[in-house]
């Protein structure tokens, strides 16, 4: 029993780390531009495919192992950031000061475009691919729980990125500017902050996190396909809402709560898939619509 509990805790932490990396991008973009970017799950998918391409481009020269894994991580993050920035520049920026609904519908359009473009693109195609073992897998037994080096990698990358993001937001001038823009765009502009470049930076960071999550998910669940971002994207969105959308620590907390809910759901009522996740969403929206850590804000006119 002890080992089962330890194993389930590890399972929750691993799944939660991947949700967290996706949820952060959702919440940051919402915090800055009040846009629920439904294409965010697809940035995650792009990251997975970029990592896949990196493996086949460099495997012959470097060989599977840590250097290749870090190269794949770096390039997947760049890939995620690039697709996020492109989406912002081409789809969201022209609609910035138009009604909110236009951007929301555009986000759904971007999401569908990415999914269908990738499945129609001959080099990628709609069928599933096995994701290569960029890092040779090793197993360890700790407190009776089976832990692979992938679990450790997932947790380490997520923790590093989350600590880095917290530092960036709290301690750097870019972070200060981001906080200012999220509080009041117009006042920030008057204070000499270039709002558009802050928005671009937010998309870049959010996209890079989604790209990193794409690589980790590819390694952990080695099957990739153009629609792989839909379900994790939805779960991460719920996580962001549960934690308080627009709130960065809230997204992290929400992601682990949601992973725990999924785990309990799958352990005890496995035939009612995703039931608990959606019940939690409904409960939060009814009881505390601002989310656990979210603050009540009056609508700005």
């Amino acid at each position, binding site marked *: 029993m002890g080992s089962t509990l330890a194993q389930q805790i590890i*399972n929750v932490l*691993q799944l939660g780390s991947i949700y967290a990396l996706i949820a952060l991008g959702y919440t940051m973009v919402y915090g800055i531009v009040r846009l629920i970017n439904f294409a965010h799950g697809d940035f995650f998918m792009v990251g997975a495919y970029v990592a896949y391409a990196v493996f086949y481009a460099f495997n012959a020269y470097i060989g599977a192992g840590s250097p290749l894994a870090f190269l794949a991580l770096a390039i997947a993050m760049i890939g995620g950031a690039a697709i996020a920035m492109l989406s912002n520049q081409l789809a969201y920026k022209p609609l910035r000061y138009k009604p909110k609904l236009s951007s929301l519908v555009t986000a759904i359009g971007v999401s569908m475009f990415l999914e269908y473009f990738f499945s129609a693109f001959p080099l990628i195609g709609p069928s599933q691919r096995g994701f290569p073992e960029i890092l040779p897998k090793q197993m360890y037994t700790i407190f009776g729980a089976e832990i692979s080096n992938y679990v450790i990698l997932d947790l380490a990358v997520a923790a590093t990125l989350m600590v880095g993001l917290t530092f960036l937001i709290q301690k750097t001038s870019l972070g200060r500017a981001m906080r200012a823009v999220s509080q009041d765009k117009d006042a920030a502009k008057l204070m000499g902050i270039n709002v558009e470049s802050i928005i671009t930076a937010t998309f870049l960071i959010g996209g890079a996190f989604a790209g990193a999550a794409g690589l980790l998910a590819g390694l952990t669940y080695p099957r990739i396909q153009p629609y792989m971002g839909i379900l994790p994207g939805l779960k991460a969105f719920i996580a962001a809402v549960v934690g308080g959308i627009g709130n960065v620590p809230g997204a992290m907390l929400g992601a682990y709560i949601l992973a725990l809910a999924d785990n309990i759901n*799958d*352990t005890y009522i*496995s*035939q*009612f898939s*995703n039931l608990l996740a959606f019940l939690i969403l409904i409960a939060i929206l009814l009881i505390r619509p601002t989310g656990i850590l979210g603050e009540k804000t009056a609508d700005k006119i």
Partner: protein
Amino acid sequence: MKAYTKFVAIGAIALGLGIGMAACSSGPKEIVIGGVGPVTGEAATFGVSTKNAYEMAIAEWNANKGINGKQLKLVFADDKGDPTEGATVYTKLIQQDKVVAIVGTVMSKVSLAGAPICQSSGIPMISPTSTNPKVTEVGDFIFRACFIDPFQGTVGAQFAFNDLGAKKAAALFDSGNDYAKGLSEFFKAKFEELGGAGSVVAFEGHASGTTDFKAQLTKILAAKPDVLYVSDYYQDVALIAKQARELGFKGPMVGGDGWDSPDLVKIGGAAVENGFFTNHYSAEDTRPIVQDFVKKYTAKYGAAPDALATLGYDAMTLMLDAIKRAGKTDGKSIRDALKAADLAVVSGQVKFDASRNPVKSAVIIEIKDGKQVYKTTVNP
């Protein structure tokens, strides 16, 4: 569209009755059999295999003096994999070509369009490969040559209990997929019948499209099953196998024909070794009837027969055998003879149950060194 089908069906009854009676009295020199399959359209390769098999069976029977001195004539019609087209060709076969029986068709949705026409015209029909249980529920003139999906769960349980010697089993399946759920439910029922109540120690579903199965697998492995039954399609099976092995499961895994894809090994790698799945047929089956069929088919068409060719051949054989035993060519006599069938065909010994589904053997395929290897044949 539905109204159109109905109209055609009513027309079929009216014309079929009148013309059918007139034709009977003259005593034709040959027996006309209808064959249906999708040789064009989305399932074209299925249709071609099926048509080849029909023709081969008819040619063999004709070379063997036909049935009761009469030669056989096959009228083949292409349903294009489309239900509307299917209704049209079934009607045409019955009205214009005056077939005594129809063998077809491949896809369940098209068989479901053809079956009511056969039923209302009193023409016996046998589908080679339509697995949807509803097909034979249309009426007592409708049969099939393949086992219905959930039956694989029964066979999988027998194999796990008898051949693998498992005393405790667990099942994991996509709870949003009728195929996977049906297989697992039948597996559980049979395994508990063999091993006693409580021998299925875990019975867990998962969401469609998910990639993380660790919560269920951790719970399953805590119950220490000897065998894990995974009735999903190959893409999920590969991930489940990987995660189960990662969590320390070393025992065998068993599944259904949803495993039958080269991608299973491509994605699953070493994790799917010690895996077994049920299927309709294997070209490596050592029974003489199988090897003989494989040799003849390969010589004639230049490729080993797939499951569709085998089932097409079996469906035709079952129908011809029934006509022979009936001694007459009216629908009712053929139907009654077909109901009483007990015949060894390529895919196994066939008898029909009360719902006109065959009770027959299935083969077990093992994943060994990344290849599919014939393991054994299991009789129900």
